[in-house]
């Protein structure tokens, strides 16, 4: 049991704004890990190579030193996916937590070779109510002109501590589209660092989160634009009910030399109870003249007019709320092609909002 301080923002602001990092108390970081067996990997065998090993990648940011070291030295699951096909390839990794598989420390490496095109789905889900621990690193390398669709779904239970650090490098003309569904965890702490080094490199991050009970989400997304005409779009949509809290820290950093780069960040939080809390810090850092950066952030209640309209069509208040949240999430959910995964997400959404 200990208190840890994690997910530091790249630039600090006043300490009493309480957003530079997140302090968590009584977090048990397990030190002797048993094997995590409940994992299924399905993939197109002639297009993707899967190996049960992964390089120890140095993280530019990461969540916190102890957690990063744990993945590097003690991971109980190492997976490397190498995508090597011009035709559309697919892979799905599913981690199922249960009584026997309570603790997962995973190190996943995804290499999208030049000119490839793939969708990778990674799911973390709990099948029991027992507390789980997840600490993972996903490192992604998108080579020249690669196209990667990366779907990450967190459906762990509300007792779980969920830690995830994602890091990518995007080369010239390559594109990554993230779809991140962050619903699970007592504490769900995510760090996403994107390094857009190539000319015309592109990253689209689409995240939905849904918090209920005492859930805490801390999202720290950092996009560094280095390549000329590089482009990052961050779209984060969420809803919070009960005492749930969310911290969103989004940084778009225009580094010198990223001429004609574009960065857009849009963050919006629906507050469904008067005890839910939304804290956000949408940062724009700029050391280059010829760029376009925008961010917008909003928070508030579901519009009464809209609610009334839906209820006038025979829906109860609860149903109307669900519909509004669903409507807000739909565009991002559309990115998920896997019907089975999508259905699971929608079920979970309905359950949480009941």
């Amino acid at each position, binding site marked *: 049991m200990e208190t840890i301080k994690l997910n530091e923002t790249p630039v600090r602001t006043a300490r009493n704004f309480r957003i530079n990092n997140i302090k968590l108390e009584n977090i048990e970081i397990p030190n002797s890990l048993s094997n995590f067996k409940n994992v299924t990997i399905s993939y197109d065998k002639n297009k993707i190579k899967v190996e049960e090993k992964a390089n120890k990648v140095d993280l530019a940011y990461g969540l916190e030193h102890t957690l990063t070291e744990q993945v590097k030295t003690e991971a109980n699951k190492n997976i490397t996916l190498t995508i090597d096909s011009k035709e559309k390839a697919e892979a799905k990794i599913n981690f199922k937590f249960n009584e026997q598989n309570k603790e997962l420390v995973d190190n996943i490496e995804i290499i999208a070779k030049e000119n490839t095109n793939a969708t990778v789905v990674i799911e973390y889900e709990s099948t029991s109510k027992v507390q789980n621990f997840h600490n993972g690193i996903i490192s992604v390398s998108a080579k020249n002109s690669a196209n990667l669709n990366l779907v990450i779904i967190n459906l762990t239970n509300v007792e779980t501590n969920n830690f995830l650090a994602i890091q990518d490098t995007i080369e010239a003309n390559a594109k990554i589209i993230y779809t991140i569904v962050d619903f699970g965890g007592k504490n769900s702490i995510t760090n996403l660092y994107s390094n857009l080094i190539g000319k015309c490199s592109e990253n689209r991050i689409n995240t939905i989160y849904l918090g209920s009970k005492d859930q805490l989400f801390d999202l720290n997304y950092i996009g560094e634009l280095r390549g000329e005409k590089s482009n990052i779009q961050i779209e984060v949509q969420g809803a919070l009910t009960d005492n749930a809290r969310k911290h969103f820290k989004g940084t778009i950093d225009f580094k010198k030399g990223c001429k004609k780069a574009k960065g857009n960040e849009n963050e919006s939080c629906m507050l469904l109870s008067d005890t839910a809390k939304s804290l956000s810090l949408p940062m724009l850092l700029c050391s280059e003249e010829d*760029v376009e950066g925008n961010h917008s952030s909003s928070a508030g209640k579901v519009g009464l007019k809209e609610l009334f309209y839906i209820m006038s069509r025979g829906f109860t208040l609860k149903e109307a709320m669900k519909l509004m949240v669903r409507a807000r999430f739909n565009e991002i959910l559309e990115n998920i092609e896997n019907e089975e995964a999508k259905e699971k997400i929608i079920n979970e959404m309905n359950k949480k909002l009941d």
Partner: protein
Amino acid sequence: MKKTELNEINRNIYDIKNKDEYDFKIKKGLTPEIIKEISIQKNDPDWMRDFRLKALEVYNKLELPSWGPDLSELNMDEIATYVRPKSKLNNSWDEVPEDIKNTFDKLGIPEAEKTSLAGVGAQYDSEVVYHSMKEDLIKQGVIYTDMETAVREYPDLVKEHFMKCVPVNDHKFVALHGAVWSGGSFVYVPKGVKVEIPLQSYFRLNSPESGQFEHTLIIVEENASLHFIEGCSAPKYNKVNLHAGCVELYVKDGAYLRYSTIENWSKNMLNLNTKKAIVGKNAQVDWVSGSFGSKISMLYPMSILNGVGAKTEFTGISFAGKGQNLDNGFKVVHNAPNTSSVVNAKSISKNGGKCTYRSLVRINEMAKNSKSSVSCESLMLDDFSVSDTIPVNDIRTDEVEFSHEAKIGKISDKTIFYLMSRGISEEDAKAMIVRGFAYPISKELPVEYAVEMNNLINLELEGAIG
């Protein structure tokens, strides 16, 4: 708009250096003995001397901020915190010593007093040398005087409010201010009195390797209103000067206060200023702020909306040129239902300058049905300047409407082409666009100050773009 105005500006106005002549200059550094000496020199009552010594203790305990610009070049051992000019407080410009009066003449203060102000205060180094207000306001019970006089003559009012809005332990430089403060203005507007014409205090720091720590305390009673303007400037020296003023504004129920600032400190100044307003029921405080000078600026005026229906608006612009790091912004805390805040912040970075917009919007649990809308825009004029936007939005209840928007970019080539196709040169087109960009702020200022601001923009732009 007219070219003629462009040529009239003269940076020299701000750079007039008078001889470093003074009546008394405290030795450099910061010790209890030095504080006691300042207290003796200023003829403080006992409570104020004790207050200063306690503030020094707090100062010694607090650390430098772990964020924002690097302040390591500041060495308090090299700064004289109290410099008494060779002038007593006067209520006629004729009695102000020649060289000091000349400085204020060139800054246009006595002229503005005649044409557009209801009262003027002028501080030179650590003490106020001139203070005067129109007769009819005196009759209505308005008090406008220097802070030292207020401590002597209105001890109860001062004790009740002095450093209660901005407590000494707020941050290190507030504690420093508490220990060494000197000068500044005290304004009291009684219930229901509307002061239609602005009051202005002007702060001038002439002495090298020194600091200015003026304290401004304004109380606007119920249903009263006031427009207060502060201006500041200093000539440039090679070594660091420090400004750590403190502004405390009490805007009581139904009252209105507009606080405008044109800051043009010299580029060796560290401007670590603190400004805060406590706003009552259905009251409103509006901040208008133009930040052009200083080497480093850390300035985040704050509105605390404590009364139901309280409102605040912040309209600000920062313009950072070579060697400048302007870390400015705004803070607002919504503590009551039906409160609202509107923020419109702009910045311009050029010639290697750095602008940061840093802010906090906090809507607390009890602030039901509150609204906040924030808009930030940053203009980059070249590719070796820097512009950062660091806004924190802390929303703690659901019945709110909160929105924040920010944009960063350069002047569009298409817009320049459009203006040039109407016969306007590239330089003029750019200056025109920048002035247009700053217009939402300059239009909030009294006309002479809007002109001064445009002049400052033109001055900053001269030779820098094109």
